[in-house]
């Protein structure tokens, strides 16, 4: 047993000694590094390391949580006492005791499969890699901001629970991206590759970043940013909407993932993040999408940012349909929440941001299963539409129904042909109407996992990571607004 696992196990024992009915402890060691070039200058070059322990206890039917930085064993008694005292102080205000589903919580180890360890590569090589990508962004005077980013994270977690289970996980996440912002005549437009807001991330090694071919895509990004400054604004009206994967993934995230979190459904997130229209009376019956829509949650899929051995309840990862053949089929749950819908086992979705935060239900990797179309055929089959690419802006209501999204770029489709570029394509809709209008999904050769490294939920807010796989898809008769 490592010293860190001993620390977690000792924290659990200490908690039991001072009165915990149940306890689990997580010692986390997080290594991060990030590099960022802005207009060719290295504006961000940083390594980080944090380590701490979070102890969760259940006493008299109430949760308590205490966390401390570092690995000082002498702090454990105070940490345990604080957690237990908090639970005792709060239990009197509970209307019903919290109980846990009887999931198997067993010992084991899990490591992200990595071909090229990003932390083994020299910082000099990483900076040189970014500089090479930046070359592709250069050469246009009206490009006022060139950004190239790279980030790596390695999170090690030693989890121990009061049933004796011990789990070790080592999760590696790696990603990069380029973007160019052009300004001309008062118009400012940005293009990004492979995704906006820092790039695309995956549970993988540096091989993921190498596979992106940032240099040649940087040129395309630069040129499109410049072209966008003189492109017309996408007109308002009703047309077919064709979404590329790096926009569709956010649609999955916001209009399927979040409304599917069971704590949100029961109003426990309503104070900040909001509630959900996907109430329990709809489970198993509700027409969430058209019958070609299959959305699968999977915390075992290769490369997913939430692919791991277990969640922070210690429950093993799994795979299930959230929407099956268009019908609403299942929720994201935890040991605390599974019984609320009559399920005896958790879906393994309870996760926290590091040692500092207690776990809450989070979206896991959630993907739209591929269809049968090629992108070319889907375009050729569209009479009047807009092909939209890359997240620019998103907003969705507190029940996850009314949404409005803007993408970085669009192209008009007229009579089966991809036509002129348009800027700021903005569409507004309603979640079930949107998914029910899906009549074409591209095939597996177009399918790709897209990482969301910055999902916020909870209050105080926590950040979690997950991936959404999809291929381009078509949604009939959507409303474009200006």
């Amino acid at each position, binding site marked *: 047993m490592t010293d860190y696992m001993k620390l977690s196990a000792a924290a659990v024992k200490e908690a039991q000694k001072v009165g915990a009915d149940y306890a689990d402890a997580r010692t986390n060691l997080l290594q991060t590094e990030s590099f960022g070039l802005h207009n060719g200058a290295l504006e961000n070059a940083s390594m980080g390391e944090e380590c701490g322990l979070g102890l969760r206890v259940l006493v008299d039917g109430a949760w308590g949580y205490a966390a401390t*930085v570092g690995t000082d064993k002498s702090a454990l008694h105070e940490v345990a006492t*604080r957690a237990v005292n*908090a639970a005792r*102080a709060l239990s009197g205000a509970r209307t019903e005791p919290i109980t846990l589903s009887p999931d198997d919580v067993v010992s084991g180890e899990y490591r992200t499969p990595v071909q090229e360890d990003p932390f083994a590569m020299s910082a000099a090589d990483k900076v040189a890699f970014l500089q090479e990508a930046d070359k592709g962004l250069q050469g246009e005077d009206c490009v006022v901001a060139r950004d190239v980013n790279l980030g790596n994270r390695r999170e090690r977690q030693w989890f121990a629970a009061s049933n004796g289970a011990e789990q070790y996980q080592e999760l590696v996440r790696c990603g990069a991206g380029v973007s160019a912002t052009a300004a001309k005549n008062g118009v400012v437009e940005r293009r990004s590759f492979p995704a906006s807001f820092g790039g695309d991330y995956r549970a993988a090694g540096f091989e993921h970043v190498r596979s992106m071919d940032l240099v040649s895509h940087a040129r395309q990004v630069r040129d499109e940013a410049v072209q966008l400054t003189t492109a017309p604004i996408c007109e308002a009206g009703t047309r077919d909407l064709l979404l590329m994967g790096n926009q569709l993934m956010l649609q999955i995230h916001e209009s399927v993932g979040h409304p599917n979190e069971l704590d949100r459904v029961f109003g426990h997130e309503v104070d900040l993040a909001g509630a959900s229209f996907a109430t329990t009376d709809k489970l198993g019956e509700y027409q969430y999408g058209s019958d070609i829509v299959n959305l699968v949650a999977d915390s075992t899929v290769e490369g997913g940012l939430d692919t791991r051995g277990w969640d922070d309840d210690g429950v093993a990862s799994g795979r299930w349909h959230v929407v099956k053949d268009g019908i609403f089929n299942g929720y994201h749950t935890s040991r605390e929440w599974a019984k609320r819908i009559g399920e005896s086992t958790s879906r393994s979705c309870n996760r926290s941001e590091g040692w500092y935060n207690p776990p809450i239900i989070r979206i896991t990797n959630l993907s739209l299963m591929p269809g049968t179309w090629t992108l070319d055929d889907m375009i050729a089959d569209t009479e009047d539409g807009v092909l939209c690419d890359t997240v620019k802006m998103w907003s969705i209501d507190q029940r996850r129904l*009314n949404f409005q999204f803007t993408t970085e770029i669009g192209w008009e489709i007229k009579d089966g042909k991809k036509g002129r570029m348009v800027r700021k394509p903005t569409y507004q809709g309603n979640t079930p109407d949107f998914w029910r209008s899906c009549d074409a999904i591209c095939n597996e050769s177009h399918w790709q996992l897209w990482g969301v490294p910055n999902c*916020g939920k909870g209050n105080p807010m926590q950040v979690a990571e997950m991936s959404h796989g999809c291929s381009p898809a078509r949604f009939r008769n959507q409303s474009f607004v200006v």
Partner: protein
Amino acid sequence: MALTKNYGLGSESLLDAATELVERAYAQDSIHEAEATVSLTVNSFVRFADTGPTQSAERAKVDVHLRVRREEDGQLYEASATGQSLEEVAMDKLIEQASSIAAISPALETPLELGGHVEVCTGTCDAETLTHGPREKAAAIKRALAAAQAVGASPAGLFDTTGRAVALANTKGRLVRNETSRASFALTVTGPSEGGLGGSGWAETIRSKVGELDIDGTIATAIDKAAIGQERGAVEPGEYTVILEPAAVSSLLLFASYYGFGAKEVAEKSSFLCDRIGTKAFADKLTIHDNWDHPMYQTCSFDGEGSPKRVVPLVDAGVLQNPVTDRRFAVLGGGTADESTGHGEVQPSGDGPSAGCLCVDAGTTSSADLIAGVEHGLLITQFHYTNLIDPREMMLTGMTRNGLFLIENGRIVKPLKNLRFTESLLRAMKRVTDVGSELDISGALFDGEVITPALRIDGFRFTSATDF
């Protein structure tokens, strides 16, 4: 926690630690300048919902940031590293990490000197806020639960208390430290009328000291906003005169804070200030400052570079003023680095300066008179998930939430189902026709808080509706 036993929340001991880290770094042959920032955060929170307390945490953390520079052949090379420990071994590891990146970094194109000696206010962390625990929070939560249940509604909320100390030291003799505290209690009440999902109300109280929170007033306001038992009407999307309460104003103005009032956005031509500085782009009635030292809520007295935060006029009777700066953008703006307005990030950073403490001057019209002055319009409590479509025009979209009401002939006549707005902040701020006399502080879904009164805006644009 053991952490607080070792270091206390005293910023003096953090300054000692930052100084030690700088001295250890500077002792390395490869490091010629160094700057260290050390912060300690002690937090206690309890979340609650219909079943009572649902989650809590008692926690503390240290964050350590080291910025180093090496000099070679007249060129400066810079990098940073972050950690969470003040032990000697950890400090040495941090120095080694930062130094190793500085060794391979490209030379700084326009190096600035680190900031030298300055005097700043050290602030105060309220002792009661720092020691406020779950037992004290449970008492307030029980009152909220009882009040909500008495009207047949479901409560959800957060009671949070935080103490924070921060210190910065560097090799140019800058030694600054500060202590602050923050307490907040927020309650959302959801009525039973629409399957438990519609008819909600919200209120929040935020202050530097927990003893100054108006908890019972917040509970009463949230319940009142939920308009339990009242049927919700519907209005068509379109343009309306609106009274935006402070939380709604806050969620709009925060985007000017994130993307507009900073000098980097101006330099890179993405700010709404571009080509508008010195022009009357907002209504006459609007005067806005960035003010870290507002009596309602005090924030840290210095920025990420240790520069004293100045109170900066951003909008003067509707006329847009110059953006806030950090040391780099103070120089790029034609001044000296020491003329920074004190709005920089911890360096090195790709983020430019930002105005994080927006304060809108109060007007003279009471809340009741604001409503009384509207013939046909909407009262808006809060916006949800506001986001930015276009930074130059500050085009925003978002949803109303937790209390939308129809005003007819100066009276609130009924609660309404929610609407989505799509509106330019510039256009909206130009159409402000009245300013409330009562200030409040509130935030939104993303980071930040604004101190503002309610505003009356004519012709505010809504683009779609919901059925709840």
